[in-house]
């Protein structure tokens, strides 16, 4: 009975963050916590009567396992740094916006907007949920910037402070012009249509000329803002196309809009007809909505990050024994800097004090942390795992080994104008239409019917406006982007959908992409270990700070320690010691002088007791769940290769995973990765998609046709890329690619349908008898058909591919 109860308690989820509780030692009342960090957040909220946080959503919190040191935000007392973060201050009141990547649910929103209860100096807090930002107004007299940031950190929302993000954010103000344009176009469209009603019902002959004149005059007046304001972006884009000597789809659209307007004015002024102003404003309205749907890219996500947003804002520099927080760009060569646990080292430096265990997985792709001795070099981008370090700066931030990658010309290359294939379809379409108009015009010209000739030429152009093409593209892409977003797959722009459907080769990174970046799995093979022996090993490895020792200690998970005598560590080789009259040795096969399984490759720790080799601990990378299935599925349609910065201990596993026909490369530098992609593109003319996560992939991501960055939810940095995918969804990549292909089919299909409408319109237009009624019926019909069709088909495809789970859950 009691054991049963124990297991239940141990399986309890943390009341704060929902993680499994490793033991039941941390609790308040009935609520269990996974760690003291979570518990203390609960205490703070409880004390301030903010527990609604927990009732809005269950386990809304963010895990607090990494303790944050007390003076971490000391640098925020520095006035220069403050100035860069603050938006406005008058000495009394200060306003700033902070980026909180942890925001994810309504509880977060509620708590953050009640933050003034925790810090009385905060006057106002406003959360922008989609941007994951909080706008804070606080009083300088009552609190400081540092205290505000510390309050947020205390409850689990540590702001992501980076000068890079701040500077880009300020230039990137919300663009509201599209809303103005849509609103105006909608208003004008509706009213012009109302006044054209008489024409539709053929009353126009019975309407008094005075009223007729009034109707028409007002229509023209209302059409003017549509033409000059709402439709302006089509003209601008068409003009840019002409300037860069390439025909984009906006050119025929702009042409059609102008011709429709001119012809309508002519008809109205010469009393020859009623014009097509309603159709014109309607089409502008629908196209603007389509553009808006398509351009709702994800505001939360910044696709253009470089190393700067990965690095901290300030460093602790020790000058004559005094620690002063210094802005990172002001750190000079030969400065002595201090680095704490879990901090990133932003410069190339030499270790002068402390025990360094540097995790380079994000920078170089090495999966195991590296132990560094005093006097050795530490490269920028490494993360110190545990303990305080002092370093002497060798190279400044902008000159370091890591940042050199950004000096590669690929990062300065401006994106060339991207032509999409719809533009080629659109181009042919435009040529065909122009030919039709011309032929019809010449035919009527030879017949001597000049009036009919002009009629035919202009109406052909009006009807054949490739708006339908544009609409089907915009609406389909808009919905696909939305569905991808719900599945945590974010694209930089709609053009990427088309590119996704065209790739034929995928290059994968290993560390952090196929494997989980900071978790290695340990396996023991050999003679069965008794609890007693286990505790011997555990006691011994706890004496060492080598990464492998730590992994083994974590694997054994034994709290008690035995007394050790004659402990000896041979740097980089192994450890030995005496416990209860047993001589225990752990280390590399070279250190032990033998191994248990000679044929097993990989990182391993051999265990020897009293001159007998008992077995070995194998350290392997932990592959993400479902990766094997994903690779199998991708292999059916694409060729694959793997490129990693790590050493080749995992070679066998990787070859098993990818199969023999895929290229596998290890020990690759960031530049080599970039060049590999280049070589694939030029030698084999492959359209390459690169899937990577770290800074070492940044070059390759940029060079490839599509760079896909994988992000773990805890990690809020991704290198510059075209798309970002949440790590948990990576295994669905094959489905996403299929969905993108489906999207292309949908666009082509709905375009065919709308082309049929156009053919009907053209039938009348060529004969020169297109009446406003027909135009007024055809235009909304084709637009609405396309909207419904594209929406329905993309939704259907999403159901078929099981991409709708997120919504129902």
């Amino acid at each position, binding site marked *: 009975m009691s054991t049963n109860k124990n297991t239940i308690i141990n399986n309890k989820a943390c009341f704060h963050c929902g993680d499994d509780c490793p033991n039941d030692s941390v609790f308040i009342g009935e609520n269990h916590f996974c760690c003291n960090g979570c518990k203390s957040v609960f205490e703070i909220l409880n004390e301030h009567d903010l527990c*609604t946080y927990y009732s*809005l959503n269950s386990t809304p919190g963010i895990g607090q396992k990494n303790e944050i040191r007390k003076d971490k935000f000391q640098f925020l007392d520095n006035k220069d740094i403050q100035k860069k973060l603050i938006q406005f201050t008058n000495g009394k009141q200060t306003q700033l916006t902070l980026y909180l990547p942890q925001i994810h649910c*309504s509880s977060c*929103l*509620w708590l953050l*907007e*009640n933050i003034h*209860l925790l810090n009385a100096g905060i006057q106002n807090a406003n*959360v*922008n*949920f*989609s*941007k994951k930002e909080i706008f804070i107004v606080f009083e300088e007299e009552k609190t400081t910037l540092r205290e505000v940031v510390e309050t947020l950190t205390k409850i689990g929302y540590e702001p992501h402070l980076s000068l890079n993000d701040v500077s880009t954010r300020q230039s990137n103000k*919300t663009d*509201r012009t599209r*809303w*103005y344009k849509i*609103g*105006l176009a909608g*208003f004008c469209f*509706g*009213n012009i249509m*109302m*006044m054209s009603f008489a024409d539709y019902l053929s009353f126009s002959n019975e*309407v*008094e000329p*005075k*009223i007729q004149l*009034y*109707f028409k005059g*007002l229509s023209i007046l209302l059409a003017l803002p549509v033409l000059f304001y709402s439709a302006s972006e089509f003209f601008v884009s068409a003009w840019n196309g002409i300037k860069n000597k390439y025909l984009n789809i906006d050119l025929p659209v702009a042409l059609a809009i102008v011709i429709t307007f001119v012809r309508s004015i002519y008809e109205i002024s010469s009393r020859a007809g009623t014009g097509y102003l309603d159709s014109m404003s309607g089409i502008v309205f629908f196209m603007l909505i389509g553009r808006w749907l398509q351009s709702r890219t994800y505001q939360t996500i910044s696709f253009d990050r470089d190393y700067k947003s990965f690095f901290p804002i300030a460093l602790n520099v020790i000058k004559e024994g005094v620690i002063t927080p210094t802005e990172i760009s002001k750190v000079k060569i030969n400065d002595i800097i201090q680095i704490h646990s879990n901090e990133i080292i932003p410069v190339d430096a030499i270790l002068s004090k402390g025990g360094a265990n540097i995790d380079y997985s994000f920078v170089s792709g090495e999966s195991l942390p590296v132990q560094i001795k005093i006097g050795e070099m530490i490269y920028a981008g490494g993360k110190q795992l545990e303990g305080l370090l002092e370093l002497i700066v060798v190279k400044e931030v902008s000159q370091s080994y890591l940042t050199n990658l950004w000096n590669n010309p690929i990062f300065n290359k401006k994106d060339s104008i991207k032509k999409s294939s719809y533009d080629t379809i659109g181009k042919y379409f435009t040529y065909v239409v122009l030919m039709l108009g011309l032929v019809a015009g010449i035919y009527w010209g030879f017949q001597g019917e000049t009036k009919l000739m002009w009629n035919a030429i202009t109406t052909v152009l009006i009807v054949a406006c490739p708006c339908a093409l544009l609409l089907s593209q915009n609406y389909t892409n808009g919905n696909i982007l939305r569905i991808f977003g719900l599945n945590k797959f974010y694209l930089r722009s709609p053009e990427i959908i088309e590119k996704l459907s065209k790739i034929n080769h995928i290059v994968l990174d290993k560390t952090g992409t196929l494997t989980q970046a900071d978790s290695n799995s340990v396996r023991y093979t050999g003679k069965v270990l008794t609890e007693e022996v286990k505790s011997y090993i555990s006691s011994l490895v706890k004496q060492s700070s080598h990464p492998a020792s730590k992994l083994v200690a974590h694997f054994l998970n034994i709290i008690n320690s035995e007394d050790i005598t004659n402990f000896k560590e041979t740097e980089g080789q192994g450890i030995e010691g005496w416990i209860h009259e047993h001589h225990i040795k752990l280390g590399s096969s070279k250190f032990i002088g033998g191994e248990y399984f000679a044929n097993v490759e990989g990182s391993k720790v051999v265990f020897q007791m009293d001159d007998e080799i008992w077995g070995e601990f194998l350290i392997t990378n932990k592959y993400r769940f479902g990766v094997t299935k994903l690779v199998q599925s991708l292999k059916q349609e694409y060729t694959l290769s793997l490129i990693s910065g790590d050493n080749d201990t995992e070679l066998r596993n990787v070859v098993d995973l990818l199969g023999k026909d895929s290229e596998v490369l290890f020990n690759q530098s960031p530049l080599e990765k970039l060049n590999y992609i280049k070589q694939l593109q030029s030698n084999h003319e492959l359209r390459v998609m690169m899937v990577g996560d770290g800074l070492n992939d940044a070059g390759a991501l940029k060079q490839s046709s599509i760079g896909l960055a994988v992000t773990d939810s805890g990690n809020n940095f991704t290198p510059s890329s075209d798309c970002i995918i949440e790590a948990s969804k990576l295994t669905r990549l094959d489905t996403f690619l299929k969905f993108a292909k489906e999207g292309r089919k949908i666009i082509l299909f709905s375009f065919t349908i709308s082309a049929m409408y156009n053919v009907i319109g053209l039938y009348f237009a060529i004969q020169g008898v297109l009446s406003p009624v027909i135009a007024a019926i055809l235009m909304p019909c084709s637009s609405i058909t396309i909207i419904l069709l594209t929406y329905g088909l993309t939704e259907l495809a999403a159901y078929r591919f099981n991409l709708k789970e997120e919504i129902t859950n």
Partner: protein
Amino acid sequence: MSVIIILLTVSICIAGAFLLAFLWSVKDGQFDDIQSPAERILFNNKFNNEQ
């Protein structure tokens, strides 16, 4: 029939007022963040009311 002219003028003026209201709300930033207000509306504003 000239009553139509008056009616039409009035109706366009009313529609114009709605348009202005829309433009005003856009300018006010109501459309900048569409997601947070939707979440916010569900809260019991116990604390905000006290202010």
